[in-house]
């Protein structure tokens, strides 16, 4: 069964901390994505990657960076966490550009 695994279900951090969210997929997918989901706003794309060491900004990249050193792993980095980054973070992968997305279970991040 295909799987996208996010390292933490719940995370509590303090303002100013550097935060790493890890995502691993076992489907050999080329494309990986990071979204955040907030009530009433839906899923918003933060960053995506179509290949190893490649990254592209999504709709709301400010305050975030990403790393994709290996095909199966895509990391989201909050350089200096702020309270407005409290959110549900969802990682997804897909085989092709218009293919269905496979999502992880999400990480609920609280920044205090």
């Amino acid at each position: 069964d295909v799987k996208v695994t996010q390292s933490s279900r719940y995370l509590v951090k303090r303002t100013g901390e550097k935060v790493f969210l890890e995502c691993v997929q076992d489907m050999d997918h080329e494309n990986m994505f990071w979204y955040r989901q907030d009530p009433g706003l839906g899923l918003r794309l933060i960053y995506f990657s179509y290949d190893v060491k490649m990254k592209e900004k999504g709709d709301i990249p400010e305050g975030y960076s990403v790393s994709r050193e290996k095909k199966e792993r895509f990391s989201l980095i909050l350089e200096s966490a702020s309270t407005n980054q409290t959110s549900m973070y969802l990682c997804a992968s897909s085989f092709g550009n218009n293919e269905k997305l496979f999502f992880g279970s999400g990480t609920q991040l609280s920044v205090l």
Partner: protein
Amino acid sequence: SQKIEQNSEALNIQEGKTATLTCNYTNYSPAYLQWYRQDPGRGPVFLLLIRENEKEKRKERLKVTFDTTLKQSLFHITASQPADSATYLCALWNYGQNFVFGPGTRLSVLP
């Protein structure tokens, strides 16, 4: 400006009835439209994809329509069950872009 709207934030229906969820979009020309189901505390799960040249797609109790003139997709669940209660998301894909998601509709099927 570009916008995706789903008919209502929440929809309650009686078990056994057909649930109809709406996805409307403005200033997009999607080549594909997808529907996902999301349960509380979980990531979305893909349900159906429909292409711009397709009018209708079915999968078991699910049916999706896509009207590019009205800029609308309808998602139907027939013979609804309490287990169908979840949030349903529509997502559009434009050529050269990524998927864009609607805000979702929370469906509650009452026994």
